[in-house]
């Protein structure tokens, strides 16, 4: 099959809800959600570090579930709702997980941070009680090259404690 030139990629209209706001855009059918969020909507908080599902930096929530936005096509979120890191803080008030990441020093270079926070958010949304092993499993798809994870684990535990006390 000859290489399609950039112009030959068919486009389609996608309507979705991102962080509570509705968007309708014409996009190429083969565009990954990650590219849509970053390059089309300008939401660059979601990162990409591998584009093969291995690092988790691109983790976002689609209808409340974590997915790797580098591997979902934007077309697939038609009529669905997406939550990204930009959707967590209420104004200047940080989400308790975000605050905990700062408090424990879990964001060193910070590149893995948005993805990790989204994975942690899904975990805390789902479960009132979490065991150590559930916590590790929830974060196992998110690579961090800087921290060695200890401060990240501490951050999620702190956030969990704080949200239970709240």
């Amino acid at each position, binding site marked *: 099959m000859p290489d399609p030139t*950039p112009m030959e990629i068919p486009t389609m209209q996608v309507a979705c809800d991102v962080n509570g706001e509705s968007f309708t855009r014409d996009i190429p059918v083969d565009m990954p959600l990650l590219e849509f969020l970053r390059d089309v909507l300008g939401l660059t908080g979601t990162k990409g*570090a591998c584009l093969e599902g291995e690092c988790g930096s691109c983790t976002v929530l689609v209808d409340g579930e974590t997915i790797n936005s580098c591997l979902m096509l934007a077309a697939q979120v038609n009529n669905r709702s997406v939550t990204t890191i930009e959707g967590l803080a209420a104004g200047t008030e940080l989400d308790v997980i975000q605050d905990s990441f700062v408090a424990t*020093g879990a*964001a*060193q*270079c*910070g*590149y893995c941070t948005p993805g990790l926070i989204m994975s942690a958010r899904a975990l805390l949304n789902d479960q009132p009680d979490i065991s150590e092993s559930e916590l590790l499993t929830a974060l*196992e798809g998110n690579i961090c*090259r800087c921290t060695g994870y200890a401060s990240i684990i501490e951050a999620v535990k702190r956030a969990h404690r704080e949200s239970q006390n709240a």
Partner: protein
Amino acid sequence: MIQQVTTTESDQTLDAPIAPADHLVGKSCRRVDGQEKVTGAALYGADLFPNSAELFASVVRSEHAHANIVSIDATQALEVAGILGVYTHADVGGTNIHGLIRRDHPALASKRVRYFGDSIAVVVAKTERAAKLGRDKVAVTYEPLPVIATMEQAIAEGACKLYPEGNVMGDKRIRKGDVERALADSHVVVSDTFFTQTVDHAFLDIEAGTGHWDGQVLTLYVAGQWVHEERRLIALALGLPVEQIRIIQPVTGGAFGGREDISIQIYLGLAALKHQGKTIALRYTRSESMRARHKRHALKIESTFGANADGMLTAAKIVVYSDEGAYASTGIAVMRKAASHATGPYCVPNVEVDVYGVHTNNNPTGAMRGFGACQMAIAYEGMMDRVARALDMDRETFRRKNLIQSGDTVTTGQRIDPVSVGLCLTKAIQKFKDQPYPGSDHLPAHIKRGWGMSAICFGLGYGDGFPDCSRARVELSDSGIATVYTGGVEVGQGLLNAMMQIAGEELGLPFESMRIVAADTELTDESGSSSATRQTYFTGNAVRMAASELREQVLDIAGIKLKVHPHEITLQHGWAYETSNSNNRVRMEKICTEGLTRGYSLKATALFKPRTIVEIPNTGQSPRAFITYLFGAHVSQVLVNIETGEVKVERHIAAHDVGKAVNPQSVEGQIVGGVAQGLGMALMEEVTYRDGRIMNPGLTDYIIPTIKDLPPVEAIIVEHDDPGGPFGAHGVGEPPLIGAVPAILSAIYDATGKAPCELPMSPERTWRLINEVCENDPLSKVF
């Protein structure tokens, strides 16, 4: 990059007591860049694209590991819709060469390519898709040359030469005493050969940035590790005066040495110069990043150590071959670091070390966390375990007999005082023994538990007379806010906080009154690289010196206001008060306003430039090879599945003397993070080549530790004031990785009774070790 703390404290009224002394040094202040990093607001290189990218660039790379370039034909590429230009070496205005020490690396190859990642042309287009399509249509004709895939091939008789001088890039040596005689007289002599692997930095934030030329200034937003030196290299290659280049470091997602060499800067600069007024964007994919970037040197280390019957080391004879890859990068310095750290923190009276750097058609090898010292620690600590076993002596006892003490010399002849390696080892082992691991003692027969240790040293800074200095500027504003200006780059390690805390401590200001501007060649002065574990020490000293000069100005002004001698004044939490009467006081704002109206500068700059001494080439001896030494010791406990070779690190303790922990949370983060990278190097990470081509250029097959691989790492911060460091601090970046790898290998040795000598100890290698399967191993090697 301008950083400021967003929370402000409520105003203190005049009668309120002054807040207690807030010692910023030693306090885990919240990271100043934390908020923007957790909200996704931080802008890393590629995050600049949506708002600024107008044109996109892409790089044409060699399809051969070694070849002559016969022709480069851009005709077809130029026909692709949206393509605006294809640029080759002929379009580069300057030397077209870069290289941190030896300038040997063409920005765009003209005649010859020496590795698969070598760059040949830059394509500029209206969209990224078009740029990549155009890139794939640039037709390069090659005349293939024999590929030198291994060091063995490189030094073989009649091997194809990568350079006219041949394939040996250089050598470094140590000569001390009479090794042959000492070995002959030794009670035991033990030899082994270690093979360390090629390692990738695998920082998450892939190379990406923008470039813009307005006819006067070329502005580059690209993450590096030493923006001022990068500016020089770009200027030379592109033929621009340095003054016409401005580099601004975007928020940076890790470096670990991987941003020391030039990456995308020259391509972006070239593209920008050709498209005046347009902002050019360029980003790599993970595979391009891995294919293009330098790597950690793979070393073959032949070690022979002798000891007498009392367990005292007598001699060490070490020969090292280092895969330098296609270009020199920082290789020469890595070789020297390997030589000067060949016997680690041990007293060895007779030493002979030869390090040979060998060019191959693999990726260039250069800086990565640990920089030569890391590989040597694997060998010398491996040898400590082996010699102890040969002597039938306990591993710890044997180490302790031979560890240097304060006032002893290391292998370069440099006398070190104070030495804290013994203390680190004591603390680590004590913790290990006093708080037993809670895990079960009842293991199935196929699971073996073992523990190991390591003791390491690390010379801080570039050393060996290599120019090394840092500058800093600190300014006070009308409102009593202090701003620190540093050329140093924040790559995640916590440099910004450290510098703000040091300056704040000196000025008696709360953290909230501190600001920092970093790594912008226009706004900040040169502070050397964020590498060699040097920033806390070097830039920290410069910042402290500048702040201390400001402090004098502040005290002078306050003295006039408070009508007391400046020496009778305390600066605390934004106030100056008479030490014996805190009611006689004045706020920093008032002092600053007063000072500025009276003509005080309230600005100070400082230069910190300690000297080191270049070694005597024939012996490698130098009375001051490094400005100071860092020490650490680790204990690791592993479970080995002897049937499958799987290894699980159950527990890891790392004790490091950091002088003084400026921000203990950051220090702990560096220690645990370093252990994680060490664990990766010990057990899983490995760039594999086939005939110079990387076989695993992605995170699917270049695997790095997940959260499930790390045990809870126990970090012990040892604080042993460094007399030369700011507030006694020295640094911590590299040593934790260096200590982690040999401790894990030592634990595997303990668990299996077999001494590992090849990295990484993947399940298969561990299984081979246990079962002594050494039939020809088809896994790729660079030896």
